[in-house]
């Protein structure tokens, strides 16, 4: 079971993802039961899949190709050193400076990821429904800084500029 961190009302909640996501809070349901979701064929399919990455979250993995994770955040988080991950080699074994692949599985927004805590340093925007399986290939825009094992905070925006 994966663990996710949700930023709600200024507090971080640790949630056992698979077991607890079913807890509903209200009755804002649709007018009718949903028929099947539309399917769209991509002309190149990847064997990679987002196992354990919950819809609505930014998901990230210790390894490339979405291996060893995911950690997940739903809100803005200014210090990923708060999120433990035993297999991360970073000091304190946290997700800060540990991510090698990520996916924006958000429902609505794009997300900026930052090199440093407190939304500092270089930044990169990840569009909704997209991600990168191997951050060793990527540098932050307008820099020569490789994104692998550097991300330390995130902030959601309506869209990438």
């Amino acid at each position, binding site marked *: 079971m994966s663990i996710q961190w949700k930023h709600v009302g200024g507090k971080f909640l640790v949630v056992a993802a698979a077991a607890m996501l*079913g807890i509903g809070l209200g009755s804002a349901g649709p007018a009718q039961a949903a028929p099947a*979701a539309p399917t769209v064929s991509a002309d190149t399919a990847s064997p990679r899949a987002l196992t354990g990455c919950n*819809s*609505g979250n930014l998901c990230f993995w210790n390894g490339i190709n979405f291996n060893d994770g995911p950690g997940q955040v739903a809100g803005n988080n200014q210090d990923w050193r708060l999120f433990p991950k035993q297999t991360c080699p970073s000091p304190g074994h946290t997700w800060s400076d540990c991510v090698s692949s990520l996916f924006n*599985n958000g429902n609505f927004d794009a997300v900026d990821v930052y090199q440093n805590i407190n939304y500092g340093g270089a930044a990169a925007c990840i569009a909704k429904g997209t991600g990168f399986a191997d951050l060793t290939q990527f540098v932050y825009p307008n820099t020569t800084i490789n994104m692998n094992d550097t991300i330390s905070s995130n902030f*959601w925006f309506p869209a990438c500029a």
Partner: protein
Amino acid sequence: MRTNWRTAVLPLAVLAAVSGCAVQPAQRPADLAAAVITANLATLRQSWQLTNAENTIARQCMRKIGFDYLISEEPRPSVNTGTEDQIGTGRPVTYGVQPPKAGPPAEDQYVNGLAEPLRSRYLTALDGPAGPLGTIRMPSGTVADFITGGCIAQARVELYGNLRAGVAALLTPSDVTTMFGRFLSTDHDYQSALTSWQRCMAAADWQVRTPTEAIQNLRKLTSAQQLASQQPAEAGADVTCDGHTHLRDRTSQARARFLATQPASVLSQLVDVYRTRQHALAVAATLG
């Protein structure tokens, strides 16, 4: 009746946009490629329009299958808005950075309020069933992944013509801009102008390395009051400093030099993105 009207008009609008419709003079591929990697008011407004259109189509898709999709539209970028590549023309000049919103988006609150198994059905409708991702190789050679199902993917198909083209339109500008950033780091004329711009901004008490960094710093502000005072002051200093150093002009000239060094395959991909965006803008215009 509405469906019939759309069925008849949409292909004509798209055809007109894709063909150029003889309204505009023919543009060189290098000009089209440059337009894709230039952040100015026109491209900012296009992105705003396409984001809203994608959300609108996704909402239509969700409603067809009995769900809602809550959209919160950002203000249209005004003529006051300056960017990395263009100074705003209206006054007071800004960077178009909006104050941070309190709490999560309405859509997230709505989804989090759904009880199971409704919530799972909703998310499957929006994002598609869990399954293989699509992949796309970008001009730099890097590979990106994308979801291929649900109403978000369906909206991209309807807006951009096909999913791959839509994802390319979303990701390619950033990818090539990153390549351009590496080019700029060794471009003497640009670096000279940038150094002068940095000194000018520092003299006005703004310690920033690039206009991009100035904008990013404002986006990180959590205080609306601080943003309201800082944004026009910093953007105003940028106007003055750009006037002294011609940084945007030097950037534009460097962009042309950069594109001249690129292989035909990269230019071709950028031109494809340009045409895809034009197609999507024509579709967006029919949404009302």
